[in-house]
């Protein structure tokens, strides 16, 4: 569904972005067209793995079932999930993602350290759609 946004297993799982060879700007989701820095002469966009850990910029949850194209089973009761916006220090960008299953807003504070982990967005009989998720590391600021 989103080819090349993440890669690796277990400890090696990473979000994948691109970096401009001319100005070093980093893009996530990956920018494969041309560098979006208006002051850049334009360089090659090279694949780069983003930092594994970052700090919570903000968070919220979704108490009501989101509309399509989010895929849910209307037969099952709605289970809210948590969304976390995470600031990556070295890339100086904020990436939004779902929290790992079981992580609620009560478990989170702004500034808390989280790490990216592989997760499952949705699965049916034929396909498992994988994604990235954020999970607290237990380290607080």
């Amino acid at each position, binding site marked *: *569904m*989103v080819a090349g946004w993440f890669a690796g297993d277990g400890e090696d799982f990473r979000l994948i972005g691109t970096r*401009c060879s001319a*100005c*070093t*700007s*980093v*893009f*996530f*989701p990956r920018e494969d067209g041309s560098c*979006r*820095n*208006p*002051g*850049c002469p334009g360089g090659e966009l090279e694949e780069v793995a983003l930092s594994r850990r970052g700090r919570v*910029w*903000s*968070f*919220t*949850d*979704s*108490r*009501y079932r*989101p*509309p*399509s*194209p*989010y*895929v849910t089973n209307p037969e099952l009761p709605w289970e809210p*999930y948590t*969304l976390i*916006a995470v600031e990556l220090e*070295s*890339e*100086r*960008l*904020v*990436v*939004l*993602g*779902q929290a790992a299953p079981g992580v609620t*807003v009560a478990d989170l*504070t*702004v*500034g808390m350290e989280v790490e990216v982990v592989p997760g499952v*967005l949705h699965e049916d009989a034929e396909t498992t759609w994988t*994604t990235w998720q954020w999970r607290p590391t237990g380290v607080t600021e």
Partner: protein
Amino acid sequence: MTDDVAVLGAGMHPWGKWGRNFVEYGVAAARAALADAGLEWRDIGSIVGADTVRGGYPGYVAGATFAKALGWQGARVASVYAACASGAQAVNTARAQILSGLADVVLVVGADAAPKGFFRPAGGDRPDDPDWLRFRVLGATNPTYFGLYARRRMAVHGDTPEDFAQVKVKNSALGALNPNARYRKAVTADEVAASAVVADPLRLLDICATSDGGAALVLSGMDFARRHGVADPVRIRAVSTVTPRYPNTVLDLPDIATDSAAAVQPAAETFRESIARAAYEEAGVGPEDLSFAEVYDLSTALELQWYEDLGLCGEGEAAKLLREGTTALGGRIPVNASGGLASFGEAVPAQAIAQVCELTWQLRGAAGDRQVAGARVGIAANQGLFGHGSAVVAVR
């Protein structure tokens, strides 16, 4: 030579869930604006429609759709889409035509029949579309974004859910005084607190609903206004339509991530701040000159953010401004005297036009029970998805 544009007429179709076609709302608003201006539709040299994308072809070609419904009369036509800023861009298109001499008098119309519940992207599998992706990959609805901003304000500035609720209390009390508002009942803080959480920390009554509605304006050059016998009209002095500057470091709809600031230092001002600054510079006024403001309170917390972005107070001081009553009717700078989106709900292409209708009525002293005493300068501010800035300054 003045760059002012006269507002000769303003009109609305009341907001609500009426279950009819958006064209009906637009035509009703247009007729009301024409009547207010004392002009016939046949007198109009140009029509600009703010697009709704949920109406299929007729929505995408709103200008022509309204022109046909009003009766083809050969007017110049344009249709514009800029998400929530569509109405402001329609006003700006009309203004550009007037100031360039392409048209003497222009009708601007926006109307929508919004879907129930969450807004959602257009149909089909479109993984190259950021709006489709944020729903498909994250389930990130508009309220979840509002929740992120609200939580961030709580963490950084110490705002509380009780502060957010007070925005609703203020706006609903004003909406109760506005015959065009959908919700005309004052809401208490307890009622906000008792409503269901939608996106932590925001509750149902912190978030604006989706609505049907329409709004229209008749705009002209100052010479036309004088010839028409209007010596001292409400004037539009500035329309801000800026885009963000790279790197845009505030997470925003519909994006999943911000730009990186690793290579380029971000500007000192945020995108929303730059929207207001551009309008102030063009109008030659500052926040200290404002009599009142209309802002997009898509959520209660977002209204507080606008206080700071408009320069009504310093960063982090918005809740204090609210608590002191400064932004209530009777305060130094009333915000959303119309009742805001809290009382209207979203009818996307109409709402920025509706804001200018409110500026007009307030500056004419014709706002009835919700009148801001001595209103001379007003600003309307909003932000459209995909990087559309929008602010209008009107004066009397």
